[in-house]
């Protein structure tokens, strides 16, 4: 707990010292993330249902659109059902945004923060596609769902409940988590860049090496542990609305809950989000690395079972 307090202090000092303003976004929100990959907790209240934030992203971007300048939040975030060795439904995120910055510049800042808190060799930079091909033997950008399914089968992965009709995303996630992450575990510190367009989330797209666009997204892995996820943030309100709609379609098809789209966030994009890069870092996982812990519950003062 002392180490946690010390880490929180150092993270704050790092960003405060670089002129990033700490803000305190709400936890109970009217709009929610539509991402089919995260499940917000719905909280029924007298005035209607609110949702616990799955990340402070939407609120922070609203501040950016209002002209806040660089901001950060060191906050709890909530994702229902995520429980395991590396997951707790309630966890601590450090998320910050840099208006006017490129994603590459932000990666350097993430590197500096990592050196400040967890000194070590500088992180390598590797494109998603290259790592994927090395581990699975096929190109993730070009492959169709049935080819990915076939590759998973050939790799000896027996999975129940997933078919080619589920689309590319889940198959990429399967191969990534079962085959590429073990490879990353041997590579030390790596920034993974050039993500498939299917995994863009709230990132901008850029022309890829082939005809397919890639996502301007990066993820920091330390010894195979996913620590941070950053974007060159998407600013186009129409594209953003389309992605929300696509998320909801996918949720409907899978029988998932349909959280309310954050209209205020879309309005903020309409008003104009400055060009910016942002990143979210899992503080509990960083602490895990720092203390050499094997599970998240070792570094949480009150893990889910005892909360």
């Amino acid at each position, binding site marked *: 707990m002392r180490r946690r307090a010390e880490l929180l202090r150092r993270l704050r000092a790092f960003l405060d010292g670089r002129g990033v303003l700490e803000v305190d976004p709400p936890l109970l929100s009217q709009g929610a993330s539509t991402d089919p990959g995260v499940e917000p907790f719905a909280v029924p209240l007298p005035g209607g249902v609110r949702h616990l934030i799955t990340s402070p992203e939407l609120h922070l971007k609203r501040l950016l659109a209002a002209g806040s300048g660089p901001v950060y939040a060191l906050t709890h975030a909530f994702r229902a059902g995520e429980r395991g060795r590396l997951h707790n439904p309630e966890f601590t995120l450090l998320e910050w945004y840099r208006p006017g910055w490129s994603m590459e510049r932000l990666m350097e800042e993430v590197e500096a923060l990592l050196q400040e808190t967890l000194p070590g060799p500088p992180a390598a930079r590797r494109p998603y596609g290259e790592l994927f091909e090395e581990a699975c033997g096929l190109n993730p950008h070009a492959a169709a769902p049935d080819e990915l399914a076939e590759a998973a089968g050939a790799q000896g992965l*027996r999975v129940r409940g997933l078919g080619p009709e589920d689309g590319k995303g889940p198959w990429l996630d399967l191969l990534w988590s079962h085959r590429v992450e073990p490879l990353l575990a041997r590579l030390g510190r790596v920034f993974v860049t050039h993500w498939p367009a299917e995994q863009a989330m709230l990132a901008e797209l850029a022309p890829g090496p082939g005809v397919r666009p890639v996502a301007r997204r990066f993820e920091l892995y330390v010894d195979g542990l996913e620590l941070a996820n950053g974007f060159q943030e998407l600013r186009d309100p129409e594209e953003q609305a389309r992605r929300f709609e696509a998320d909801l379609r996918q949720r409907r098809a899978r029988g998932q809950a349909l959280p309310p789209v954050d209209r205020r966030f879309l309005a903020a994009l309409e008003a104009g989000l400055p060009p910016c890069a942002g990143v979210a870092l899992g503080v509990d996982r960083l602490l895990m690395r720092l203390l050499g812990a094997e599970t998240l519950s070792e570094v949480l003062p009150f893990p889910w079972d005892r909360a």
Partner: protein
Amino acid sequence: MATYGTNDLKTGLKVMIDGDPCVIVASDFVKPGKGQAFTRVRLRNLKTGRIVERTFKSGETVEAADVVDVEMQYLYTDGEFWHFMVPETFEQHAASKAVMGEAAQWLKGQELCTVTLWNGEPIAVTPPNFVELKVVQTDPGVRGDTSSGGSKPATLETGAVIRVPLFVEEGDVLKVDTRTGEYVSRVRA
């Protein structure tokens, strides 16, 4: 039949995989970032003992296996079946040679074993961790003979053959670890 959701898949749980009862020996929640969540489990097939790995998409259901472990006393074998009895109820079960596997070679009678029942039928028998058995045949140890690493084979009263120290003689009663098949000590000469 009862089913479990992927959130229920914890170590020790018994589920059906490809028509065979299996016990979960390890379970992990796997989820890249905001991507698809999976539950990855390692299971031991209770019939074959083989370890298999399976991955379930979150939200899938898995059929529960009606498997229980019951303490039973070993009675006798008729050569084809090994007969066991639940001491409290006198209920009897017969296990085939295939089900007995390695366990058969440690049993002479009266031992309390763990019999795993699936849908009421024995599928595995676990003998006590330690048994005491008499040596029926072993060659006299030759002092100074180190070529065999200080041990020699001995046949026990149940027919099992184990490596024993050179000082062990016919008629000795030995304590044997059934999990490793290794000699532990001489109980009495």
